[in-house]
């Protein structure tokens, strides 16, 4: 666009369309503006998240007492599969990169948009198509799939449910992820503003960069793997079927070669968000910038080398079990580097505990429990005892939900005023954060104990000795449901009715806090020249921020 007039420049991206429709849904679903696409993802992903939560609450309801309470075992199998598939493929993998990466990555590096805006729109459409395919697979006559989200052979080859369509949905969703990654890598390499050197880039950008690499290199592996399952179902090609000379364990290798790095697709962006929020609310530059940036790359790389720790009990060779156990422990190192740097950043800072910061505290606590119990699972001997029990269920909810899910909310609370130009009620947000903490631990901590005592995962029934703890967990799930209503209710209300937000309500210094709330179509009146490191709070003196 040529030099805009003053009047034009003051319009926010909500008022300026990038296509020939000025208003209405078409102006959104065909928009190439990275901010609109980010919001489209936000709405879609949040909707699926709530469906997933509903499935979770239903499962917990079935588990309120031993024996059959509400539904048949088969329906329970389908519920946990649906819950897992939605939460993994439709919520947590695309979550942070597609929503906040799209919206904020270009702004934080001083760009007008991503490198390939049309490809960006395409990736959203592919997400929608994949999601629709997944939904269709639920309603078709043979019924929703019941293999668990991992599609393990041989059962996934034999099951009579709609496996093929659901698998194709995951395949299509993978493409969306690859395109987003491609776009971000190119954007970071090519579109940084003058002066925005690699080491002046906000850490969220670094984490998106590492994530994008995993998206591109790892996702095709799972795509091919699950296509092989479909081929096996229709043509019996024998790659996984031992009677035809195949190897079922090969499926697990291939599956986890993607799906383990995929957990870093989930957690790296979350760690990036934490590295944004802590300096802002501690009013202090991040401790160990380079160490954090490099540890993202290290996690991305080492993350490729640990996949077989999901397979310790499958009969893989002892040599590989020992090697993978060792490698697993190594991932703890770069993760530890981050946690210590965050804590060191807060040390002697002037901490202002606003809601985003409180959510980050939730994260550090919950994620640490998730991460440390991961070491219990990573060490061979203890894993044999707790493999496939509730211990694992508790562990992965603590890392995925307590880690990434918590940061999803932290990011939402942090950037909400920038995205919508309105402020939410701080008190409600604080209450929600506290409620979330209680609900979360009620819901999942008993699962560690039950798992240790031998309660297997994916069972719709249990022995009477687990009853008390199962019930605590179920009550926790209700509390979690209430928390979700509180969070989404208050945020949706604030989107429409909240009071106008200041352009820099928290006193942040990265580029997004220098521009209007909500941003204009091209983000910046003119592309900024960056002269300082990203978390240099001395610039706050000249900036316009709320508590001034």
């Amino acid at each position: 666009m040529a030099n805009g007039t003053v009047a034009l420049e003051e319009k926010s991206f909500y008022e300026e369309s990038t296509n020939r429709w000025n208003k209405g849904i078409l102006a959104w679903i065909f928009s190439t503006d990275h901010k609109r696409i980010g919001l489209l993802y936000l709405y879609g992903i949040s909707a699926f998240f709530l469906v997933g939560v509903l499935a979770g609450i239903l499962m917990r309801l079935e588990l309120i007492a031993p024996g059959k309470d509400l539904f048949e075992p088969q329906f329970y199998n389908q519920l946990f599969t649906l819950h897992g598939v939605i939460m993994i493929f439709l919520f947590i993998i695309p979550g942070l990169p597609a929503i906040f990466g799209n919206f904020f990555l270009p702004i934080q590096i001083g760009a007008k948009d991503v490198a390939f805006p049309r490809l960006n729109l395409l990736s959203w459409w592919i997400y929608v198509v994949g999601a629709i395919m997944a939904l269709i697979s639920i309603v078709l006559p043979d019924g929703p799939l019941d293999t668990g989200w991992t599609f393990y052979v041989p059962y996934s080859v034999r099951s009579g449910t709609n496996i093929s369509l659901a698998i194709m949905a995951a395949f299509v969703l993978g493409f969306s992820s690859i395109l987003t990654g491609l776009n971000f890598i190119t954007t970071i390499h090519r579109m940084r503003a003058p002066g925005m050197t690699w080491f002046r880039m906000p850490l969220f950008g670094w984490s998106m960069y590492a994530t994008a690499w995993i998206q591109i290199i790892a996702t095709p592996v799972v795509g091919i793997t699950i296509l092989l399952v479909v081929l096996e179902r229709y043509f019996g090609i024998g790659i996984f079927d031992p009677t035809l000379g195949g190897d079922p364990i090969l499926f697990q290798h291939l599956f986890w070669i993607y799906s383990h790095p995929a957990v870093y697709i989930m957690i790296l962006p979350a760690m990036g968000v934490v590295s944004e929020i802590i300096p802002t609310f501690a009013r202090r530059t991040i401790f160990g910038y380079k160490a954090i940036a490099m540890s993202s790359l290290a996690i991305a790389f080492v993350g490729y080398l640990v996949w077989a720790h999901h397979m310790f009990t499958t009969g893989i060779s002892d040599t590989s079990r020992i090697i993978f156990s060792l490698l697993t422990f190594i991932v703890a190192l770069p993760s530890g580097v981050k946690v210590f740097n965050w804590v060191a950043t807060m040390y002697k800072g002037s901490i202002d505990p606003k809601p985003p910061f409180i959510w980050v505290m939730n994260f550090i606590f919950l994620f640490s429990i998730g991460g440390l119990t991961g070491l219990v699972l990573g060490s061979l001997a203890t894993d044999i005892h707790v493999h496939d029990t509730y211990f694992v269920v508790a562990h992965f909810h603590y890392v995925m939900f307590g880690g990434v899910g918590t940061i999803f909310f932290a990011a939402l609370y942090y950037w909400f005023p920038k995205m919508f130009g309105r402020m939410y009620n701080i008190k409600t947000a604080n209450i929600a954060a506290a409620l979330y903490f209680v609900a979360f631990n009620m819901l999942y901590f008993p699962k560690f104990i039950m798992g240790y005592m031998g309660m297997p995962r994916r069972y719709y029934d249990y022995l009477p000795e687990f009853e008390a703890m199962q019930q605590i967990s179920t009550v926790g799930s209700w509390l979690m449901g209430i928390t979700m209503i509180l969070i989404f209710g208050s945020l949706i209300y604030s989107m429409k009715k909240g009071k106008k937000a200041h352009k820099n309500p928290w006193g942040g210094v990265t580029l997004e806090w220098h521009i209007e709330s909500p941003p204009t179509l091209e983000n910046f009146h003119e592309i900024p020249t960056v002269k300082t490191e990203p978390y240099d709070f001395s610039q706050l003196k000249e900036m316009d921020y709320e508590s001034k």
Partner: protein
Amino acid sequence: MSQHDNNHEHHGIGYGGLTLVWLGLLALTSITVSIAGISLGEYTLFVAMGIACVKSILVVNYFMHIKFEEPIFKVFIGISLFTLVVIFILTYFDISFR
């Protein structure tokens, strides 16, 4: 849009060269197919993988134009290939010690 960085030239090997590469690929494919019937014992895998490697080197360099691109692309491909090799090796720790 003010920036146009499309000014780097498109060199390559022309239609003749591309056809030659294509013929080479066809030849390699027919070798793969014809030796599939011969029992090479434990070398089978290495021969098949070797031919596949040569073919992908041709495709990547000429059809995908990497030979004529900036070094950064080569670095990227190198990193990806390195990761792939590491994954192969790690998988073999299972398969060959079972």
